[in-house]
Every structure is written in C-alpha cells, then in structure tokens.
C-alpha cells in the first residue's frame, strides 16, 4: 500500500484505483482540520487509540505544507503518533501538499480510497494547519472535525465564514487553557443565533495530550455517522467526495495543458485578458 500511494503521488495511480474502486465505500472517513498548533496530530493520536480499543483498523493521512521555494517539505505529524508506529492495524502516511491549496494534497483522495480498499475501517485525514478558508476537507470526509484554539480571537472570528461553516463537530482543544471556557461559550452562543437544517454541529471540549474528552469526541462522531446513515445524507457525502476527486483529476490535467499553452504562446505586446482569450481559444475543445 505504501508503494501504491507513491504511485498515486506521481500521477500513476489510475490503473490501480480503477481496479480497486469497487472495493471502496466501506470505511468511515474522518477529517480533522484547524489552525497550526491547535493539537490536530495529538487529537488524531487520541482518536486512533480510541478506534483501536474498539478493534478497528485505522489509516491516517496527514498533510503538511510543501515549500513554495524548494518544493521540499518537513513532515512532522508523525511525532505525536509514535505510540502507534508498530501497531500492524495502524497505517500512517505523511503527505506534502505539493502546491495544492485547500489544505489537502493532490493524492489525498487516492490515499483514502486505497486505505478503504485495503480494508481499513476508519480513515483519518489530518489537513495542513489551516487559516480561515481551507475547506477542501469538507468534500472529502464524511465527518469533519474542526479543532479550535482557545485565546485566538473573539466571537467575530467565530462568526466568520470558511472553516467555521464546515464543522460537523467543533473541538475546543487545550481545555486547561484559561480561555477555553470562553471559546466554548462563544461557539455555543454563535450557534444559537443561526438556523440549522438537519445536523446541528456538536461541540466537544478536549485536552488531547491528557486524553481527556476523546471518548466524548468519538461518541459525537458516531452520532454524526448514524445521522448520515439514517437520513441518507451519507450518499450525498459520498457523491461529494467523488465529485471532489473528479474535479481534482480533471483540473490537474487541464492545468498541465494550460501551462504548456502559456509557455508556448507568444505574449508580447498583448494585454493579459487578450492573452488568456487566445490561450483558451488555442486549447483543443473537450
């Protein structure tokens, strides 16, 4: 599987995914996102421990940023997951974002499919540490956990658009932080102001390092999965994940063609609008 993910990362995973696609669709996929340093990896470790205690096989895909300058990357999410390294039923893969925006890497969706096809019951996707608008994870995961940091802004931050809108479960981590309770209250009061249609995001307070609140978090996840199954929304989420991947793949190919066209196209004395028109006109119709 390690090799298969590498194939996907170098754009050669197509045949394998085609062959295995029928075996996918069984795993529960959990997305974990939030700002850098909020404790995503530590929460991930806690969730892996919980899932293992229930006898589930767990795959983890953990994305960290690539350097826009050297294209290198330092992938450090494993550090918090060390206790699971030698567990045969846990497979952890670090991934560099390689220029992809949105908090995921190009091959993340493939890695999730592969883990699913290889029989992992739970696939946990940890995004790049995100700012306010990296919401790609919402398309890929069935359940999205948004982890928030106490002491990082007032109620207006909570009201803003972006990652706050994609949470199925809010996690206030670092419960021992003096501002933790204030953050919890602000999220709660903001949620009370809004109209909810169907699922109302849950709010769980954790202290991941000590393992506190992980059981409650897992229960919230299970309630969300049950909700998805009962209401038929699971099908919608699966379709979203499918669409996400189709778009990623198509865009990737299109981008290559575009880059070639831009490189080859003459652009002297032309304004950017005109240049863009010409390039689009020069592309083969599809």
């Amino acid at each position, binding site marked *: 599987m*390690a*090799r298969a*993910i*590498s194939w996907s*990362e*170098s*754009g050669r995973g197509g045949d394998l995914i085609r062959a295995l696609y029928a075996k996918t669709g069984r795993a529960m996929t959990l997305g974990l996102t939030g700002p850098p340093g909020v404790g995503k990896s530590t929460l991930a470790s806690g969730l892996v421990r919980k899932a293992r205690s229930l006898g589930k096989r767990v795959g983890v895909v953990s994305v960290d940023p*690539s*350097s826009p300058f*050297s*294209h*290198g*990357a*330092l*992938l*450090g999410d*494993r*550090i*918090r997951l*060390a206790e699971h*390294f*030698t567990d045969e039923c846990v*497979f*952890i*893969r*670090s991934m*560099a974002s390689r220029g992809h925006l949105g908090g995921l890497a*190009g091959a993340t969706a493939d890695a999730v499919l592969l883990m699913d096809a290889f029989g992992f019951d739970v696939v946990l996707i940890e995004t790049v540490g995100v700012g306010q608008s990296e919401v790609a994870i919402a398309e890929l995961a069935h359940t999205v956990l948004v982890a928030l940091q106490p002491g990082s802004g007032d109620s207006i931050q909570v009201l803003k658009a972006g990652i706050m809108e994609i949470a199925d479960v809010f996690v206030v981590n670092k419960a021992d932080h003096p501002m933790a309770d204030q953050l919890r209250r602000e999220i709660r009061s903001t949620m009370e102001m809004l109209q909810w249609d169907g699922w109302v995001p849950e709010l769980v307070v954790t202290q991941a390092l000590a393992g506190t609140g992980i059981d409650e978090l897992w229960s919230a996840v299970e309630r969300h999965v049950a909700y998805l199954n009962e209401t038929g929304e699971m099908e919608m989420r699966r379709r979203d994940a499918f669409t996400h991947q189709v778009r990623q793949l198509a865009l*990737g190919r299109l981008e*290559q063609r575009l880059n070639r066209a831009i490189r080859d196209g003459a652009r002297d004395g032309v304004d950017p609008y005109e240049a863009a028109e010409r390039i689009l006109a020069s592309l083969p119709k599809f």
Partner: protein
Amino acid sequence: MNERPLRIVIAKAGLDGHDRGAKVIARALRDAGMEVIYTGLFQTPEQIVQTAVQEDADGIGLSILSGAHMTLFPLVVEQLQAQGAGDIVFFGGGTIPPDDAQRLRDLGVRAIFTPGAPLQDIVDFVRSECGKRRALVG
C-alpha cells in the same frame, strides 16, 4: 506531479534527546527539495523502520549522540532486512569514532557523517544514493 521529490526519514533513537543536528539535516534536505519525515525523539529501531516502510521512504538518516551507536545502528540494519526493506538507503551521523564508523559501514550502513561534515556533502550523498533507489523502484 511526475517528478516526485525524494522522501527521507530522519530519526532519533533510544535515550538521546539531542536533536539539533537531526533538525539541521532535516532542514537542509528540505531546502534541497526533498520531503523529510521527522519521527521525533526516543524511537526504537522497529518504529523507525516501520515508519520508513509506510512512508515509502527512499532513505533513513539516523542521528545518534548518546554513544549507543554500536547497538542501535545494527538493530536498524536487522529490522530493514526483517521487513524486506533492504532497498532503503540507511545512513547516519553523530559522535562516532572512526573505527566504529568503519565497522558500521561494513555492517551495511551506507555512510556515517561525523561533526564537521559539510551539509552539502550530506545533501549530495542523499540525492545521489537515494536517487538510485528511487530510479530502481520508480
């Protein structure tokens, strides 16, 4: 796409909390365009090799400053064999006397870098040797 960067695991093993060197190397490899997976401190040889296998790493760099190099390096070599991962380029660094370094190389550690080794030498070694492994496995 296409040109996938080399992937290198940088590891610290056993009771050895000094990771400044490991971080310097990790940073240098990153700046050379590689993807570096840092394991964190206090890893066992089994954890390190398991990590490299799951990450499909092209190389493992192990830093040891505790004096336990004659125990830990051979255990990693053993684990690599046991896991059928002998294609992964294993190299290391630390405060390692020349005689020990020679014995470790004889055991299959591909290179030992001691204090004062120029970063560029290490980067060049990794790029060339791990690049060969990559060319082999694709």
